[in-house]
């Protein structure tokens, strides 16, 4: 009997000890006392910051960002949105121009050629135009190659040839950007005086620029309202292209982050495809679309009747100022 009591006492004592120990040992899940439970969690950081950055030990500061999921949004833009925006803008513009041509045809000089010429653009103006134009065409083609080349050109050129072409295209795009910049800056300075809005521009818009059949001739000084819009797009859109382009050409200079450059690429892409679409329309109107327009940028002169029909206020201005722009045809010997 005594042995039984001794055993019972032992069991009870053991139970009491267990209870005492479990009450005194700290609970490990308490956030205050367990440093492991306070560890930074990936998901929490991503939700809060959209970017996980810490301290590194190598000189490359940009490597201190360990996770930057925003790259996925940029990917979505570059592989899906930019292709749709670009495709619609450029193919849409081409389709519009084809329809316009079928409906309107080449806009003729209504009064026929007079045989008298007017100087429209000086040699310097033409130089600046063609400097900008030639570099723009190369920049446009090489730029579109980066977005559309993989789908359109790579399959029939093959990987090696396409890479070789794309690498040269990249160099051309990078280096010609400087010539294009000079062109845009000169163009901005050279023509800014003639590109501020005037009352005649409202009239021009009301008449649809006189581009319809029998739409009459809309008033315009040296540049009509449509050309003024083009000018301001080239100046402002060109500035956007130049700034965003140099952000991509000089990666990480001056504290640029990968987020800045993603944004720059989005800007560069969207403005770029709109620029190409607009310039396609400009090329159409300067060549096939209108009789007598191209010579203003080739030899710099236009027929007097062309000038009177499309830029009547400019002709008046020139005549008032002593007909400086008028060129008398060389008489036959």
């Amino acid at each position, binding site marked *: 009997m005594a042995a039984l009591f001794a055993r019972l006492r032992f069991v009870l004592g053991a139970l009491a000890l267990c209870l005492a120990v479990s009450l005194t040992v700290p609970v490990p899940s308490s956030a205050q006392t367990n440093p492991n439970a306070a560890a930074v969690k*990936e998901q929490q950081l991503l939700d809060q910051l959209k970017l996980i950055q810490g301290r*590194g030990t190598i000189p490359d500061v940009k*490597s201190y960002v360990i996770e930057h999921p925003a790259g996925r949004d*940029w990917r979505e833009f570059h*592989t899906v949105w930019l292709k749709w925006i670009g495709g619609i803008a450029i193919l849409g513009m081409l389709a519009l121009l084809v329809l316009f041509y079928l409906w309107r045809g080449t806009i003729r000089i209504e009064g026929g050629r007079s045989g008298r010429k007017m100087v429209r653009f000086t040699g310097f103006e033409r130089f600046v135009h063609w400097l900008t134009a030639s570099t723009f065409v190369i920049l446009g083609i090489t730029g579109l190659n980066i977005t559309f080349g993989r789908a359109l050109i790579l399959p029939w050129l093959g990987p090696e040839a396409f*890479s070789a072409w794309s690498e040269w295209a990249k160099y051309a795009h990078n280096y010609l950007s400087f010539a294009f910049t000079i062109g845009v800056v000169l163009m901005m300075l050279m023509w800014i005086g003639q590109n501020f809005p005037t009352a005649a521009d409202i009239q021009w818009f009301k008449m649809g620029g006189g581009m319809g059949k029998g739409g009459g001739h809309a008033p315009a000084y040296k540049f009509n309202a449509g050309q003024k819009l083009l000018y301001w797009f080239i100046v402002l859109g060109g500035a956007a292209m130049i700034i965003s382009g140099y952000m991509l050409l000089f990666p990480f200079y001056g504290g640029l982050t990968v987020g800045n450059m993603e944004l720059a690429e989005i800007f560069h892409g969207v403005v770029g495809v709109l620029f190409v679409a607009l310039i396609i329309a400009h090329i159409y109107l300067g060549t096939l679309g209108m009789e007598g327009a191209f010579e203003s940028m080739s030899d710099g002169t236009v027929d007097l009747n062309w000038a009177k029909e499309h830029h009547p206020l400019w002709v008046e201005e020139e005549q008032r100022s002593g007909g400086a722009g008028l060129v008398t045809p060389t008489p036959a010997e």
Partner: protein
Amino acid sequence: MARMKFLCDADRCIECNACVTACKNEHEVPWGMNRRRVVTLNDGKPGERSVSMACMHCTDAPCAAVCPVNCFYTTADAVVLHDKDLCIGCGYCFYACPFGAPQYPKVGNFGTRGKMDKCTFCAGGPEPDGSKVEYEKYGANRLAEGKLPLCAEMCSTKSLLAGDGDVIAQIYKERVAKRGYGSGAWGWQTAYHETIAT
């Protein structure tokens, strides 16, 4: 075939940077470029963690999606590699990469980038396995020799794991179950669209 992945158990990483050094040495990675780096979060604060990060060899890799010349390819082991002969150094993969893995040598004027370089999971490139030209362009091809990436193989605390995704996920799960905590498989949700339930 295996689906190769990296897993950095941040609760074990002691920021010794040996993985960084081993990688640079094994592949003769040029000055100024790092295929792997260690980043410390909450430095000096409670809950500080260090993560060793390199290319995660993503599922549906963003770099491959945006590459204008389509120079990326995925091996049978799901390792994302690229062909330096095709790369034009445009930098787009760096914009798209969630882990900042692509590196570029600076060649020529301005910021002109050379051919991109990144972690190959020690699997070389498109050239014949173990060839001299492969070594010069991409570094060692340990996978072809039946070895795993050196960074993980020599990790002193076995924080960095490399190998088949299911196997390393199982190892990590067991660790978390045993020690009772885990800060998560860093980058897995972003790279593989999955996490390890612990």
